[in-house]
């Protein structure tokens, strides 16, 4: 693992570091040497592995709180060592190789998943330049003009792990899982890539450090809110998490592509899934939430003190974990989609919306560049257009309700519709209960024959009657 990331780092840093240093504002890697690369690469691996342990604990704990139960609380303080114990268990379990599997690919698939997920953090900026033992270096392994595209490429490769793992298992459910995940990733990566294009347009660059630098004034999630929403949705789809976890849907596919995996090989898939969650959260932070920049009131303190040195690492981690919390929140809230609904959202809503948004952003950008209108006038014009648009939308007649089926209200109540005992439909009245009729008749009879004050009895009878009735209903 360490080797792969560090070689990739060396390679990218060595081969492509030069053009970046020439560019404006980007991170400056000119002082880095192979030792610095090695140390950064190792630190990134350590960071990712420990984060995964914490993420598993975090997810179980938060989901438990959302479901009003304590969650893991036995091993270590607050159950913190639970995921360590789980990892040990997975390491020590028997490693089963399925007989019907395609051996080579069966073993290689989990490795592809993990390697590819580890590569993304090579281009994520943790912070600005810091000085360590006299070496001034950015808190980032490497960066180059197409860093964000590199991230997309690496995620695309990571899917091969899932697809091949499912295929090589030689069994039906894993195959179905991997076919689903292929379709899912192809459709959601399109939406994801398109939503990132508007960030490229505004930032004028595809290098991560320059994108962070371009968010000094405003974080892109505000002006690019639609793109941000599309990214949020497609990032959940991209990492196969609920409500988009169709490739591993337990209810239908046992556990999808990883059904036939056990022990360490399963653990690798598990690891890759959580690292991918961290990856997409970090990308969302970097591209839309200002990367390592301090949030607004803090960034103004003491001439930007919190945007220098080691402080930015804190902001970066805080924002990243905010997205991780969102993952857990969504998981605790939403149900899994049906497959056709899921594909419909991807192709008929997300991709057209992303395309439309890109055209809008491109038009606005070109107006800014070619007519040199200043930003304020442009924003006012855009706001006016939006208001007129909203106003016009009120003039469009609402869609007519479908030709109404005979309303339930007008139909007599059938307690055994379709042969099953059913409750009344909305608007239908339950026929008066025979028991209540009998009780009322008895009360009336008692009142008529009673010798006491008639008004009192008459008033009292219905009220007791109602009380009884209510009790009956609750009992029923």
């Amino acid at each position: 693992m360490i080797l792969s990331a560090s070689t990739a780092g060396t390679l990218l840093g060595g081969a492509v570091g030069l053009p970046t240093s020439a560019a404006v504002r980007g991170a400056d890697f000119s002082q880095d040497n192979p030792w610095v690369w090695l140390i950064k690469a190792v630190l990134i691996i350590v960071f990712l592995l420990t984060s995964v342990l914490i993420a598993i604990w975090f997810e179980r704990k938060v989901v438990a709180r959302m479901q009003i139960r304590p969650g893991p609380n036995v091993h270590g303080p607050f159950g913190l060592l639970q995921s360590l114990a789980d990892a040990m268990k997975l390491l020590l379990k028997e490693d089963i190789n399925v007989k019907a599997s395609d051996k080579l690919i069966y073993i290689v698939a989990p490795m592809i998943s993990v390697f590819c997920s580890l590569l993304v953090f090579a281009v994520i900026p943790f912070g600005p330049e810091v000085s360590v033992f006299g070496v001034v270096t950015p808190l980032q392994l490497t960066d180059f003009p197409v860093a964000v595209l590199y991230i997309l490429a690496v995620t695309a490769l990571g899917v091969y792990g899932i697809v091949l793992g499912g295929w090589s298992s030689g069994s039906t459910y894993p195959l179905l899982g991997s076919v689903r995940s292929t379709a899912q990733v192809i459709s959601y990566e399109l939406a994801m890539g398109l939503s990132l294009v508007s960030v490229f347009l505004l930032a004028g660059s595809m290098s991560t450090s320059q994108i962070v630098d371009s968010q000094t004034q405003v974080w892109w999630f505000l002006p690019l809110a639609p793109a941000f929403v599309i990214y949020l949705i497609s990032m959940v789809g991209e990492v196969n998490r609920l409500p988009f976890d169709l490739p591993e849907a337990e209810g239908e596919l046992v556990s999808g592509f990883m059904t036939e995996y056990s022990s360490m090989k399963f653990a690798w898939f598990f690891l890759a899934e959580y690292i991918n969650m961290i990856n997409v959260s970090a990308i969302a932070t970097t591209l839309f939430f200002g990367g390592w920049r301090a949030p607004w009131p803090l960034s103004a303190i003491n001439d930007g003190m919190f945007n220098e040195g080691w402080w930015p690492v804190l902001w970066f981690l805080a924002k990243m974990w905010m997205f991780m919390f969102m993952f857990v929140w969504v998981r605790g809230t939403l149900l899994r989609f049906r497959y056709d609904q899921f594909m419909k959202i991807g192709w008929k809503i997300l991709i057209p919306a992303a395309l439309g948004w890109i055209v809008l952003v491109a038009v606005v950008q070109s107006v800014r560049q070619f007519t040199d209108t200043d930003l304020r006038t442009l924003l006012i014009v855009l706001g006016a257009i939006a208001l007129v648009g909203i106003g016009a939308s009120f003039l469009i007649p609402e869609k007519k309700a479908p030709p109404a089926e005979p309303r339930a209200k007008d139909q007599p109540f059938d307690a055994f519709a379709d042969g099953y005992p059913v409750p009344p439909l909305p608007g239908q009245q339950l026929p008066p209960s025979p028991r209540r009729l009998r009780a009322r008749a008895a009360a009336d009879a008692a009142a008529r024959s009673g010798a006491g004050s008639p008004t009192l009895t008459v008033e009292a009878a219905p009220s007791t009657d109602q009380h009884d009735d209510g009790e009956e209903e609750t009992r029923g």
Partner: protein
Amino acid sequence: MTALHLASPGLAAAAGTLAETGRTSAGEALLFWCLAPIMVLAALGLVFARRAVYAAMSVVVVMVSLAILYVAQEAPFLGVVQVIVYTGAVMMLFLFVLMLVGVDASDSLVETIKGQRWIGWLFGLGLAGVLVGVVLTASGIAPQGLDAANADTNPVGLARIIFGDYVFALEVVGVLLITAAVGALVFTHRERLTRKVGQKERADARVAAGTSLVPLPAPGVYARSNAMDVPALDAQGRPIDASVSRVLRVRGQERSVDEVAADNGAGDAARYLDAPDTGPGTTGGVGSTPPQRSITGEETVQ
């Protein structure tokens, strides 16, 4: 194979040009000599692999290695886009089809199109001619140097060429691709002849049909016979036939509870199983009363 042919002379030429300008570093040479044998092996694997998925994976290896070489030669955009488009989308679709169709080594390799081989040779020769021509014309150009090419970062330089010098060619290619996509849509489009049946209609139909609304019960799982071919037991301890897969029942591979019980040494289990339900007090057990004897003869249930 094509990728290999395409790659090797191009790379050699590029490496040669770089060497002339004195910019091939030791690291770059090392990278090339590490990746080149891998690419050659993978390209051979594409031709000789017996399973279609292995052939597809060989192409992926060649593509990724090629992308790394592009990046090493300071064409990061080309390298990364190659992975996104070809490896991430095109090869993924190939794999998708391979997995769905289930192409295997056992498939017949007899050609169904007449004269396919000759046409193939013809196109191959044509492609080779084009490639040789490209290499020959390319070798006469004086290198500008990468610094000049990547002056405003690689993607910007590339964008100027594509959307400036070659914008017409780009648009033509775009039209071609869209035509192909629309053509594929037309070929696969089917007119819907009947009304679409939605989830609600299906549910209503199932209720109206009066069949079971819930999934069928799972087959029996006992301590001694954890098998698909033994029926589950209902609350009264009687076997539920529907719990065994229909296929097994049709084939006659279903085992009755009696057989399992007999195997396990509970000889008289059959007696109460076959007996009709005679109400509470019998050994079969009714409602919430469990049967007094377990079917498998493992233990006495109280």
